């Protein structure tokens, strides 16, 4: 019998149907992957199973018991544990502290008022054992905010395991991870097989096809296919809807990279940039240049200083030494809003749309800053670029799918009429088709003359799109060159980009 049975589950948010009559079965001990394009309803389904949302209709049966109306914390006690898409721990607490709470949450009543938790030795030992299991055994006393992103995700899984679940929901456990962090996570998930059912929401197809025993594909809130990986892979509908067919646009995308625009005046010049977080130095003299009309990428593994470089340029993390010249003005040490006014717009990592403003408000709230350029951006112009947002104009930013939020974040940056668009991991956690859509929009913007500086991990794709690349390693520029030079030198990949 199935561990989890979902029958005819629907969820509406106002007028938007997020899920429509979905069925899903997770068996004891299997790893079941849930895949689908952004906005397909995967996270909604995970929320419904965990009890964070109530379905509009349908039933959820867990171990033969109807839990449709059971609140989240009781489902946790019944054996449904989850991790969150965005890391969601107790940030001020330590690794051990987070795990101790998780053990406490599962074992015994919280209505014990007298005995200090610190004296409960068994609880602490059990928590330490879970830290060991997820590979954090030597980081017990490290505060969560001092952990790397990958370690935080490992801790997320540890916290979920501490609930001794029968069913573990993992929502994009490898998002934002480097390849070796991701490999570690895959090994961890594989070690859970047979011990508990795992429902895995994941975008990385390599991960999915490596670990999943069965796969369910969601598209537009409906189940498109469900079965063994090979069946799903062979299913033509799935190909069309999710993995993407080579259409005319994709062919265009695979054309050799365009010639760099003829020598054009520099828009942004950076020399000897050094940035610190408190006492620890992150950038050790970064030099780079973006000319007008150019697309430049910053490449490198996680933690090499890419995001810090972007934040230093836009003024959010002021550099301690070095020079930044933008549009002929020395902007080193300027406040972020002044730099933004001069025409440098950041699309931050994680999108950071305002969840409690509507799409329209998210866009129009920023339209006033910046000098009107030759061709000012208007709401309509953004909506023409991202037609998907038009239908969502009056929805809250927080209701959008990941892909839509990304479009909104780019649109919001464009509304400031930038001369240089700076993007940090703009395609993080997006399905292949949505990713492609974003890249095509960026290509279009660049053809219209906008200069772009971006950080992204899909180097392969970037080589077909950008003019110039800069590779960072431990806060230093170790290589600069054209796309051709990048592709023709496999040693670069080995040394700086892959595991």
């Amino acid at each position, binding site marked *: 019998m199935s561990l989890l049975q979902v029958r005819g589950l629907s969820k509406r948010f106002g007028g938007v149907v997020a899920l429509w009559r979905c069925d899903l079965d997770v068996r004891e001990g299997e790893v079941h992957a849930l895949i689908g394009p952004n906005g397909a309803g995967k996270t909604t389904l995970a929320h419904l199973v965990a009890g964070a949302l109530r379905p509009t209709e349908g039933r959820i049966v867990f171990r033969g018991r109807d839990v449709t109306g059971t*609140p*989240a914390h009781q489902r*946790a006690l019944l054996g449904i544990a989850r991790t969150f898409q965005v890391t969601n721990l107790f*940030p001020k607490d330590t690794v051990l502290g987070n795990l101790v709470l998780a053990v*406490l949450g599962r074992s015994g009543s919280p*209505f*014990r008022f007298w*005995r200090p938790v610190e*004296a409960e030795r068994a609880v602490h030992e059990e928590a330490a054992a879970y830290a060991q299991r997820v590979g954090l055994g030597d980081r017990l006393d490290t505060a969560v905010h001092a952990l790397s992103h990958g370690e935080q995700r490992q801790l997320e899984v540890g916290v979920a395991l501490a609930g001794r679940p029968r069913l573990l929901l993992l929502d994009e456990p490898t998002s934002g991870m480097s390849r070796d962090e991701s490999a570690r996570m895959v090994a961890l998930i594989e070690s859970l097989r047979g011990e508990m059912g795992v429902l895995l929401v994941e975008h990385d197809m390599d991960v999915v096809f490596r670990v999943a025993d069965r796969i369910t594909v969601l598209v537009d809130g409906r189940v498109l296919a469900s079965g063994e990986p090979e069946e799903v892979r062979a299913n033509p509908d799935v190909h069309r809807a999710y993995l993407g067919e080579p259409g005319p646009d994709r062919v265009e995308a695979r054309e050799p990279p365009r010639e760099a625009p003829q020598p054009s005046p520099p828009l942004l010049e950076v020399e000897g940039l050094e940035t610190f977080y408190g006492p620890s130095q992150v950038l050790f003299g970064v030099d780079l240049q973006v000319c007008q009309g150019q697309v430049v990428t910053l490449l490198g593994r996680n933690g090499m200083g890419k995001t810090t470089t972007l934040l230093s340029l836009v003024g959010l993390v002021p550099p301690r030494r070095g020079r930044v010249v933008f549009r002929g003005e020395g902007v080193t040490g300027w406040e972020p809003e002044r730099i933004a006014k001069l025409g440098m717009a950041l699309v931050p990592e994680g999108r950071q749309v305002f969840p409690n403003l509507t799409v329209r408000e998210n866009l129009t709230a920023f339209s006033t800053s910046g000098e009107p350029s030759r061709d000012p951006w208007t709401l309509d112009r953004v909506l023409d670029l991202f037609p998907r947002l038009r239908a969502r104009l009056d929805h809250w930013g927080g209701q959008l799918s990941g892909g839509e939020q990304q479009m909104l974040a780019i649109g919001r940056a464009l509304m400031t009429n930038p001369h240089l668009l700076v993007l940090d991991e703009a395609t993080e956690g997006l399905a292949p088709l949505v990713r492609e859509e974003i890249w095509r929009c960026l290509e279009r913007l660049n053809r219209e003359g906008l200069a772009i500086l971006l950080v992204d991990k899909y180097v392969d794709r970037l080589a077909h799109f950008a003019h110039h690349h800069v590779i960072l390693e431990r806060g230093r520029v170790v290589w600069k060159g054209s796309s051709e030079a990048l592709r023709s030198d496999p040693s670069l990949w080995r040394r700086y980009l892959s595991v």
Partner: protein
Amino acid sequence: MRARNLSVEAGRRAALPWPAGVGRALLWAAGGALLLAFPYAAEAFGWHFYLSVVTKAAVLALAASGLNLVLGYGGLVSFGHATYYGLGAYTVAVLAREGVQQAWAVWPAAVLLCAFAALCVGAVSLRTRGLYFIMITLAFAQMVYYGVISFKQYGGQDGLRAPRTDLGLPLTDAGLYYLTLLLLGASLVLLWRVVHSRFGRALQAARDNELRAAAVGFPVYPVQLCAFVLSGAITGLAGVLMAHHTQYVSPNMLGWPQSGHLMFMVILGGVGRFWGGVLGAVALVLLEEVFHSATVHWQLFVGLVLLAVALFASRGLSGLLEGRLR
């Protein structure tokens, strides 16, 4: 391994409401002796007024510590704690007016009434968050305030005399001082155990990350409601003591400025720091007395001090002291 031993070490320390170390123990002993000897010194040197000030500070320390449980450890900004403070005090006065003055009846009745009031207010207000929570707790407090002043037979706007209850022994000012210290000490031990217990962990987990707390299996609403009731009861007990101290109750004890006053103490002392309520109450009472005797515009100066704390010491006096001691 090392880390685990450290935690267990910390556990032994956490089992007692006082810090380890001989120096600290001596400090505590000296402080305790000073507090115990104080009424005799007051008697000897004619500092009767100061005995009253210290008693008042201790009562308010109890009230603020009760509030700190929900405000600091629960992250729940209750803007209506004057309700429990005032109801505790009014119970003494009203029962006395009705001829009930036995302490064994009055004190439990007052505390139970406050706990029940907190249960009712909490049951509704804890279903909301943020600004709405503040507004609902304030709204309930104002309802109680106007409810009480509508009882003309209990003094209405003018308040009511509150003779001291009968404890079976004469309750002098010094006796009340000792009783207040005893109850404050007992409540602090209780609060210390509570905030370090499983319950306390659950409460703080819900404050730090409610979604996560529910996901690991903590029943957030019942835990918060329970904390709210405990907090209301402790603040109510402080109200009972205040009625004994002033021997008079006024509707001002129920009004929103009183709620704000209690919140000020917690913020001044340190929100969510164990000694925040005590330090804040003592400091505010001292500040008020000092400025009060110096100028009629004393409230202005108290306000400036609060402004300085909010701007420069966001963890309150506890934060400053902890920084000094380490």
